[in-house]
C-alpha cells in the first residue's frame, strides 16, 4: 500500500473487517441465548404452541372421517359443553400407533376424545381405526392440512385440551405415554372438568 490509491484503501479495509464484525455479532447472539438458557427462559427442545391460553382457531366444519358420518368444526367444539381432547393423527405415522393404546384407555375412561385425521386417505385412516379400535367420539379429516396449519401443528400426533369455553388449555406434541397421561393430561382434565 504505497498510498497511490488512498481512496480505495479505506473501503477495502472496511470490507476485510466485515468477517470480524459478523463473527462478533454472532458470538454476542449466542451469548445472549446461553444466558437465557441458564435463566430457564429458553428451551431449544420445547415445541411451544402459541394457542395455549387462547381461543381455538375458527374453522368451518371439516368433512367426516369414516366410521363417523358427520365431521365437526370450531363451533361444535365450543358447543361441546365440557373439556375435550383434540387429537391430530394419521395412519402413516408410527408414533400415532404407539400412542393408540393410551387413547383407547382414555376413551374407556369416558374422556371425550375428538380426532382429526391429518393429511391422510380416508380409507387408510378408517382401516387403522378398524384394526386398532376407535377411541374417538367425533372424527373429522383435514386432508389438505389447512386447518392443522391454523392450529400450529408441528407433526402428528399432537393433542390439545380445550376447556368448556373453547380455550386451549393444554398441548402435547408427540405421542402421549402412560406417564404423561397420569402426570399431566388427567390432572388437567380434572382441573377444567
Amino acid at each position, binding site marked *: *500500500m504505497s498510498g497511490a490509491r488512498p481512496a480505495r*484503501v479505506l473501503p*477495502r*479495509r472496511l470490507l*476485510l*473487517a466485515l*468477517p*470480524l464484525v459478523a*463473527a*462478533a455479532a*454472532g*458470538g454476542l*447472539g*449466542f*451469548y*445472549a*441465548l*446461553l*444466558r437465557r*438458557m*441458564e435463566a430457564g427462559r*429458553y428451551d*431449544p*427442545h*420445547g*415445541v*411451544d404452541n402459541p394457542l395455549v391460553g387462547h381461543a381455538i382457531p375458527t374453522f368451518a366444519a371439516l368433512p367426516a372421517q369414516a366410521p363417523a358420518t358427520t365431521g365437526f368444526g370450531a363451533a361444535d367444539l365450543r358447543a361441546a359443553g365440557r373439556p375435550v381432547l383434540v387429537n391430530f393423527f394419521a395412519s*402413516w405415522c*408410527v408414533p400415532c*400407533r*404407539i400412542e393408540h*393404546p393410551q387413547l383407547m384407555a382414555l376413551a374407556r375412561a369416558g374422556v371425550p376424545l375428538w380426532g382429526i385425521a391429518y393429511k391422510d386417505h380416508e380409507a387408510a385412516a378408517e382401516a387403522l381405526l378398524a*384394526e*386398532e379400535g376407535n377411541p374417538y367420539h367425533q372424527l373429522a379429516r383435514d386432508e389438505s392440512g389447512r386447518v392443522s396449519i391454523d392450529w400450529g401443528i*408441528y407433526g402428528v400426533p399432537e393433542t390439545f385440551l380445550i376447556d368448556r369455553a373453547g380455550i386451549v388449555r393444554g398441548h402435547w406434541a408427540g405421542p402421549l405415554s402412560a406417564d404423561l397421561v397420569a402426570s399431566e393430561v388427567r390432572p388437567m382434565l380434572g382441573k377444567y372438568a
Partner: protein
Amino acid sequence: MIPELGHFALALAVVLAGSQAVLPLWGAERRDPALMASAPPLAIGQFLALALAFGALVWSSVVSDFSVLNVAENSQSLKPLLYKITGAWGDHEGSILLWCLILAICGAAVGIFGGALPAALRARVIGVLGATSAGFVLFSLTVSNPFVRLWPAPMEGRGMNPLLEDPGLAFHPPILYAGYVGFAIPFAFALAALIEGRVDAAWGRWVRPWALAAWAFLTGGIALGSWWSYYVLGWGGYWFWDPVENASLLPWLAGTALLHSAIVVEKREALKIWTVLLAIGTFSLSLCGTFLVRSGILNSVHAFANDPARGVFILVLLALVIGTALGLFAWRAPRLMPTGVFAPLSREGALVVNNILLCAIAAVVFTGTTYPLFAQLLAGAQISVGAPFFNATVLPLAIPLFAAMVVGPMLSWKRAQLAPALLRLWWVALAALLVGLISAWGWAALPALGFAGAAWLVLGAFAPIVERARLFRLPLGASWVRLSGVPLAAWGGVIAHAGLGLTTAGLSGMALAEHRIVAVHPGETVAVGGYDWTLLGLRDAPGPNYTARLAEIRVARDGRTVAILTPGRRSYPLQRTTTTETAIRTNLARDLYAVLGEEHDGTAVLRLHVNPLAPWIWLGALVMALGGGLSLADRRLRIGAPLRRGAAARAASA
C-alpha cells in the same frame, strides 16, 4: 494411580502447549534460531503428554475403574471390550480429550514432516497450533476433566447410551474429529502468513496437502455418521438436516472451497486473501460444529448434555481463537496483494464460480441452521427450519455447481474459450441426456434430473483424462503412454469428482424409495416395492447386557426367496432404553430395509422399505475420500521439496 497419571499428563500438556505457543512465536519475531527450533520438540512433547493422558483414560475404561466418575457414568462391566475402548470417547469429557489429542497430533505432524518449511514459517504455524491447543487442553483440565474421581466408588457403572454401542459410531468420532481438527493446520498456516504478511505459490503448495488430508477425513466422517443414522436410528432416512449434521456439513463445504481456491494460489498466485479467509473460516466452522453443538443451544436429535456454564467457557474460547484470527485478518490482509491476473473465463474463473457456489450453499445451510436461534433472540418466536427449506434452496445451487465441476477442468489457465471446451464434452452431455430421458420415462422428473446429473458428473470427471490421453484419436498404445503420464494428483481430482456423481446417483435413487408401515400377524404377507414380505415369526433372544425381540421376515420376489431379514428391538435394563435393530440386505442396486416396531394383540408393527441405490450414497463419499488420499499420495513427494515455480513465473511475467 493410572488416572492420576493421566490427570498429571493432561496438566503437563497445558504447560507444554503454552510454551509451544509462546516460545516459537516470540523466536520467529526475534529471528532467534534456537527459540524457533524449540517448536517441533515442544509439539511432539505435547502430543506425547496427551497420548499418555488419553491412554490412561482408555485403560480406566477397559479395567472398569468405576472410581473414575467418567467411567462410572458411561460404562459398565458387562460391556464388550470394543465398546469399553471406544466408550472412552463416547461422552463429553472423553471426546474433548480426543479432540485435544488430535490437535496435538496435527502440531506434531507439522513438527515432523515440516522440515522443508522455512524455519520462521514452521515456528509460527506450530506456535499458532500451540496457542489453540493450550486453550482447549485447559478447558479439558478445568471444566471438563475426564479424570475426576468418585468416592465411594459404585459397584457397577451406569452404562453407555445403547445407541452408541455400534461399530459404526465407535469409529465415527475419531475420523470426524480428524477432519474437523485437521483444518487447524491450514488455519495456522493462514495466521502465520498474515503475521508474515506474505502469501505466495509455495504457501499454497504447503497448505493444500494438509487441507486435503483433513477434507478426506471429514468426508469419511460425515459419510460414516450418515450411514449410522441410516441403519441405527431406523427411520429409513440418511440425512435429516439436523443442526448437528449441518454443523459437520458447513466446514466440509468451506473446506472443499478452500481446497479449490488453494489450487489457484498455488498455480496462479491469485485469490490470496480469499483463500486465507477460507482457511480461517473452515476451522472456525469446525470449532462451532464441535463446540456450539455441545452447548445444547441448538435443537437436535443427537443428545449431548446441556450445560450452559460450559457453553460460556466454550464461547469465550471460540471468541478468542476466531476473534484473534479475524482481527489479524482485518489488520493484515490488506497487505496481501494479488499478483496473478486472469480472464473471467478461465480455469481460475471456473474455480471462483465453484467457490461462490460452495459458499452460497454453506451460507444457505448456515442461515437455515441458525435462523431458529435468531428468530428466538430477536422476535421471541419458536420456529423450526426443516428439510423442505434445505432441499428447496440447496438444489438450485447444486445444479450450476455440477455444471461447473465438469466444464471447469476442461478450461485452460489464465484465459480460455468456452465453446471448444463444451464441444469436447458432447459425449458426456449426450450420455447424461440419455440417462435423464430414460429415467424420466419410468419415474418422476426430479430423480431423473438427479440421475442425469450423476451421469454427467461421473463421465465428465473422466473427460479431462480422456482429453489428455487423446483417447480414440491416437492409437491405443500411444494413449496408454499418455495415460500413464497423468499425475496421481490429477487422478485424485477425477476420482473425487466421480465420487460425488456416485453419491448423487444414490441420493436420486433414495428419492424413489418405497416404504409401508404395516401391522401383521405371523404368517401374513404384504407387498412393498415389488417384493412380498412375509412375517415368519417372532422370538426372544438374550444378549450380554440386553434382551432382544427378533422378527423373522422372508422377502420374496415372484415366489423365490430373496432374503431372510431379522430386525429386532433390544431393551437395555440398566439404561431402561430400547433400541431398534434395523435389518438391511443390500445387493448394491437396492437395500431391503426392515424395522420392527411395537407389538400388541399378536400383531407386530413393521416398517418395510425398499431403497434403490442407497449404498451408493456412502460408497460415493468413500470414493471422494479415496480421491483425496490418492492426490495426497502424489503431493507427499512434493512437500519435501517445495519448488518456487510460481515465484519464478511471477518474476518472468513482471
